[in-house]
Each structure stands twice: as C-alpha cells, then as structure tokens.
C-alpha cells in the first residue's frame, strides 16, 4: 500500500494551467495507471468531503479538543491529490503560500457547488524562507482545532512531491480588514461582537490547546457566510503549554513588548495583540505607529497607550488592561485567564453561550450570490511560472519534516 501511495503522490502535474507543459512531470499520467482500490478510496474521500459541507456545525470546545482521531475533519489524507480539485480563483497570497477557491473535480451533480479554499505551499519556498517549523506547527495546530466555530476548519491536508496542501473551509465574506478600512472604524456594538468572538477563540486556544496564536490582526480574521468570524493563517501558531518560546514573529504593530525584548513569551502575547486589535476596531488604526518600525517598537516597549477622547471609559479600561507591559498584570494572563476578559464591563451585553453556538447575528452579513461567490476578495496576479525545482537532494533532507502532511 505504501508503495502504491508513493507512486500516486509522486509524479503528477501540479500546474494549474494544464496547457503549460512541464516536461519532467508530463511523462506519465497517473490517472491511467492507478489501481482501482485506490480509485475507490479517493472517491469515498471526495464524497465525505462533500458531505462534511452539509453538516458543518460548531463542536463544543471539549469535543474539538479531545477527539482528534474521531473528528471528521483535520486528517492527513494519503489519497487526495491536487487533481481532485479544480482551481477556480486565487483568494489570497502570502509570502510562500497561495490560497485558491477550489471545487471538487468530477463532482457528482449534487456536489457541484461545494467549494473549499485550498492553501498550497511549495516545499522549496518553505525551506528557503526557513519556515519549515512554522508550517509544521500550522498543520498540526489546525488539525487539532478543526471544528471550532470561529476557526477556519482544515478539512484535510495532503502533499505531493513538491507541494503541501491544506484544504480549508471556504470563508466567503473576506477579511475583516477590508470592512474595517472601508468603514474606517467600527462602532462599539460591532467591535464588541467581533472582539467577543476572538475572546472565545483565544480562550479555547490557550486553555484547551495550550496554543499561542501569535499573529492576531484584522487581516487574519475572515467573515463567514453568516457574518461570524473565522481565524485563518496559523503559520505562527505554536503549542507552548508551560514553556516559554523565543522566536520573534508576528506583525510589527501587534508585537508584544516581551517579543521585542526577547525575554521569552507565551500565550500572553495574544492578549496584548487583542488589546491592539480592539483599539484598531474602535479607532481605525493601532495605538503604536511610526514610519520607522524601530520607533514603533520603542513605543511598544514603553507601553503608553493614548486614547482619543471619544473612546468610552470601559473600552479604555479593557485596552489598558490588555496592553500592559508587565505580563503578571496583563488582563487575560492573570488568574482567571480568559474569564477575566469575558467578565470585563465592556462585554457586559454579550451572551457568551449564545455567541459560541452562533445564535447571535453577526453585524455584517456578506451579500453573496451563491456559495462560490468571490466578490469579497481582491484580484491577484497569476502565479509566476518560474519555479525552483524541489530536487532529490532536498527531498532526502527535508521530506522527513513534512511527513505529517
């Protein structure tokens, strides 16, 4: 079986433009050569992917956390391949990843409008940018948290010779970032609603999973079809549990002081960033900014937040509590954890249980023409054709590290 899998995973075209010839991968089409057992396994897998769409619903935090083996989602698939998906449109690009809207190829009629987001990473780029560890963390954390109502669900992951794939629940509303920039800022109820959903995410990640997310910002928060949030991009997420960690990562305006000073950091960095996020929701820009990034960091380490006079006292109090340089005084990190944030006066109107179960309406429900509508996403340049090959030597050295995919 393993040999058969290897044969299947190995030499097939991964180019999305089938018209472009890629000599070394063209030699054989695995379609004709595969045995039928494998074929059936793939068909089954595709069917269950299509079905998952139908009954996706939030699992309770304990269910999400406790049962990774028995969840329908988040597994590493040995049979899926890029050909099982038709690449429809680019939804976003990162430094080394491209996220596509995809449809099941050769889907049954009933499954034809089932769509997903497929995040594709080139192994070469991951290695070149020294992100191997981060990408492994990303896959493993996403697998562990799949099923949480406000985290993008990784339905499955797989790989081929030179690429890594994460099949994600498609989130058609686009980034909170876009809405925020257009509105300039959110009013209090809107900010409270989004902030509250983020609190539930952080509570879950920190207290159930021991995971620090480390890149909170409006760009990484998407809006789903019903107006609820989905956190994406777990590239810096890391299981820290009770050990501090040191690698600097995040986004300049959102970095916590202990990350800048390299004194060791943990989940408390997310509460700092959460304070920055709430500030940015309410004000339209983060509290620490300068054209020179070093000046941003200097302000952060100093940690004096200034508030516009129009900001409510409760909001100021919350943000001050979160953006506290001393982690032993930072709201969310002190005794009581996320509970101290949830019980803060600024959130007094939130029904936390109703929110988790999505019984509360989102303030912005995206206007969509159907499940595959991409109007909320920008246009992206097509992928460049020149690609550094993933050589045999590299494979020998690195494939070991990608074996979880």
């Amino acid at each position: 079986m393993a040999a058969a899998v290897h044969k299947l995973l190995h030499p097939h075209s991964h180019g999305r433009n089938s018209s472009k010839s890629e000599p070394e991968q063209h030699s054989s089409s695995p379609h004709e050569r595969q045995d039928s057992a494998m074929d059936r396994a793939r068909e089954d897998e595709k069917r269950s992917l299509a079905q998952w769409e139908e009954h996706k619903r939030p699992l309770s935090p304990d269910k999400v956390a406790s049962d990774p083996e028995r969840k329908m989602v988040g597994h590493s698939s040995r049979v899926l391949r890029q050909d099982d998906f038709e690449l429809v449109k680019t939804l976003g690009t990162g430094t080394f990843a491209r996220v596509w809207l995809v449809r099941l190829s050769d889907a049954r009629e009933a499954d034809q409008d089932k769509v997903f987001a497929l995040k594709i990473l080139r192994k070469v780029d991951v290695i070149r940018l020294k992100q191997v560890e981060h990408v492994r963390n990303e896959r493993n954390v996403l697998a562990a948290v799949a099923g949480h109502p406000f985290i993008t669900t990784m339905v499955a992951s797989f790989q081929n010779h030179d690429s890594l794939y994460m099949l994600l629940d498609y989130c058609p509303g686009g980034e909170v970032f876009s809405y925020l920039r257009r509105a300039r800022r959110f009013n209090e109820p809107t900010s409270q609603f989004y902030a509250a959903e983020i609190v539930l995410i952080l509570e879950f990640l920190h207290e159930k999973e021991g995971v620090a997310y480390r890149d909170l910002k409006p760009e990484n928060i998407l809006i789903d079809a019903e107006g609820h949030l989905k956190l994406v991009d777990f590239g810096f997420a890391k299981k820290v549990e009770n050990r501090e960690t040191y690698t600097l990562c995040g986004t300049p305006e959102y970095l916590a002081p202990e990350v800048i000073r390299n004194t060791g950091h943990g989940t408390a960095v997310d509460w700092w960033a959460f304070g920055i996020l709430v500030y940015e929701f309410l004000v339209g820009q983060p509290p620490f900014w300068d054209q020179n990034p070093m000046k941003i960091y200097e302000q952060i380490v100093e940690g004096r937040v200034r508030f516009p006079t129009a900001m409510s006292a409760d909001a100021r109090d919350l943000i001050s509590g979160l953006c506290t340089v001393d982690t032993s005084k930072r709201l969310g990190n002190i005794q009581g954890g996320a509970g101290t944030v949830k019980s803060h006066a600024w959130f007094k109107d939130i029904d936390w249980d109703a929110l988790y179960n999505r019984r509360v309406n989102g303030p912005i429900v995206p206007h969509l023409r159907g499940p595959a509508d991409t109007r909320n996403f920008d246009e992206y340049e097509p992928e460049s054709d020149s690609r550094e090959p993933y050589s045999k030597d590299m494979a020998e050295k690195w494939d070991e590290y990608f074996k979880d995919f």
Partner: protein
Amino acid sequence: MSLPPDYSNEISALNREILKQQPADTLQFCANFFLRRLESQRAEFLLSQQHSSPKGRGIAESSFPGSNPFGTSPSGGFASSQMHRLEEEEENDTIASPTASSFPPNAMDSSHNSPASQGTFGNFAGFGGSSKGNRSQPPSALGNLEPQSFPNNYNMNRRTSVSAESLNPASSANDNWTPPYHQKSDDQQSRLKAAVSGNFLFSHLDDDQSAQVLGALQEKPIPTKGIKVIQQGDVGDYFYVVENGSFDIYVNSSGKLEAGPDGLGNKVGTVGPGGSFGELALMYNAPRAATVVSTEQSTLWALDRVTFRRILMDSAFQRRRMYEGFLEEVPLLSSLTPYERSKIADALETKKFPSGTTIIREGDVGESFYILESGEAEVYKRGVDKAVKSYQKGDYFGELALLNDAPRAASIISTTEVKVATLGKNGFQRLLGPVEGIMRRNDPSKSAHSDGDNVDPLAK
C-alpha cells in the same frame, strides 16, 4: 422558469432570520428585514462611492509596503442584520495620532509631514525598512496626500507578518553555544557602551547581557571612502556602531538602491563616531531602508542578529530555569504545577543590593518573598547579637508574607553584594490566587497551622 438568484438569496436570508428570531408579527418582521437590507446596502454603496476611487491608492508614505492597495478592497455589498450601521466617517475627522501628545484635529500635520531630513538617525521614513515579502510595490505616491487620509499618514495597506530565524534554547544546551568575544580596550568598551545606551534594545539589558553583547561586537575596518556598508533594499543581518570616520545616508524613493549616478537617491543624514545604524536588523531579516556610504577611511563595530538575540534568549532561558529550580525547593509552593511555576518565574523581579543592606526588617509587615540569586546574607533577631543563620544562593526567605500579614520575624542583611529575585503577595495572588488555596491542594492539614514549623526560619 427559475427564480433569479438574487431573489433566492434574499429569501433564504429572510428564512434564516425568521427561523432564528421566531417573530410574533411575521409581516412586520419581513417589512423591517427588507428595510434594513435596503438601508445597509445604501450605506455600503455610499461608502464605496467615497472610497473606491483610484485616489485611494498610496495614501501614505509607506514603510510597510503591502501587496494590496486600499483601492482594491471588496466591492460587494454587505448587509446588516442588526441595526448597526458602520460608522461613517465624519467630515473633519478628529482622530489624530493616538501616539501624539494630544489629540488636536491636525496634530500630525506638523510632526510627521516634515521631510525626512532632520539628520538624526532614524527620523527619516522607516530606516530599517520593512518585512518579509511583498516588496513589489514601492510607495509611489509619496507626498501625494489627500484630505481624507489619516492625519498621521497611517499606512492603510495590508500588513505583512515578520519573523526571525527560529531560536531554540533546548538545542543550545547540546551544542554548548557561547557568544563570540572580541577583545576591546577599556576605552573602546566605554565608548561602545555610550553609543548604544540611547537605544531601547540595549537599555533593558542587565550587566551580564550587556557585557556579552559588547563583547560580541566585532571590529570592521572600512579602508576608504565610497564603500557602501549597507544598501537600501538588501536584506539586513548586521547592526553597526561607528568607532571613527563618517558615513552618509541616502534614501532612494523607489525603495531600493538603483544603478546610475542618481541611484543612491537623496542624502538624508550623516553618522559619525558614536552613531549607529541598521538596528532593525537586530529584530528580523528586513530590507534595508537606506544606503550608507563611507565618506573617509573609517572603523565600525558590527553585531549580527542571531548572536544578539541568542545572547538575550540564553540568559533569559537560564534565568527562568534557575528560578523554577529555586521555586521547586520552597515547601510552601511545592504543589505548584509546572505551568504555575513558570508563570511565577516569569513574574519574579531581579533586584540588586549592596553589601550591608537590610532587605527585610524584623517587625515590618511582610509584603514580598525573596530568593537569593547570588551573594550572601545573614539572619538577625532582636535580642541575639550574632547572626542566627546565613543564606546562600538558592535560599529563600519571607515567603510567609505570601500567606499572611504577620510582621517579619527576623531581619535579613546582605553580607556581600546580592542579587535577589522577588515577588510581592499582590503579584502572586494576581497570577495564581491565594497561597492558602494552593497549599491546601496536597495537604489539607498544612493550611490549618501555617505559622510555621519548618516552613520559614523567620517565623520562629
């Protein structure tokens, strides 16, 4: 004969709402629903009229070029199923820079629009540059500010993430890394110290870290004028301090050094002895924001990011492990979980006292708990003229203060210079709650008579 898709969408949204809200008055509910839809689409339309024009591009001089200029945000409508309208921007918006010293309507007009030519290092736009990736769109509309833009030129683009090479303290134990050391004269040493003292990355270092960092700076002779030490747009790994000589700083508005006579761009400043440049490279691998060229034969000191961050990491790591080890020895805290211990270790504050300091005075109300990190101290009690006990590295005292407000039962006086790690009762309780509860966990009888026995010699 099929219904238009827009219609189906509206109806299914309405259906969802009805299911969710179960209205008593269905007709009124439907009417309200459509009115709200109309209202939010109109608001959305008006907003996009305001914003989607091409002038939305290049709002600010950007030191964080993103791939996603403002003008291309989603164009679709969004509906509001509750009554929240997105706040529209008022004419004459009064949000000024939140970091400015006050919030007058035009606070930033004066402070940030001035050209980047004050000469002091770091005052021009984003020297040190930006982050990984997405550098394809240099800020093209420099100075082309429009009335709607944020008063302090806040960059409205998508922000890219940054990360440094991964640092793993566990592996450092195996390969036994020690920072490089380059000999310097006392003079050089103190000049270097002065040169970096104003930089916040260095001002937080303790004495050991500071000595290691200064020791790691490596001399780099610049033999002649005209040498480009760093080039705008290149990735940066080193931070430099000028020992002697002089350097000019140039910024090309294209974002990188270009070929040809004007390729350097504009001269924005000069650095001489005691000056420094390229400090962003100590954070992560970012493109250089300027080109720095020698104007005569000079000498630099160079420090690379990995060495710098590793020095900080190793000392922080060792200190934390040491604290955790000490904490494990405190019987009062023996039931702490490793997670709790690491939280306390994180919160412990280091203090130094000269020889002969009374760290704790008998009879005072106890507030803090101490661990002796280095040096020695002695315990004195009233009425006894000799020290009753002496303390060394790893010994702890005053922990009963975490438990109750009883006065200190003895005085502790340092006999050498000492370093202690300390935490107050408030800090402890903020992190873990009352100590009584923690003690009760493994031995319920202990909490009943906590006044003493072998817990703390101070109590006797």
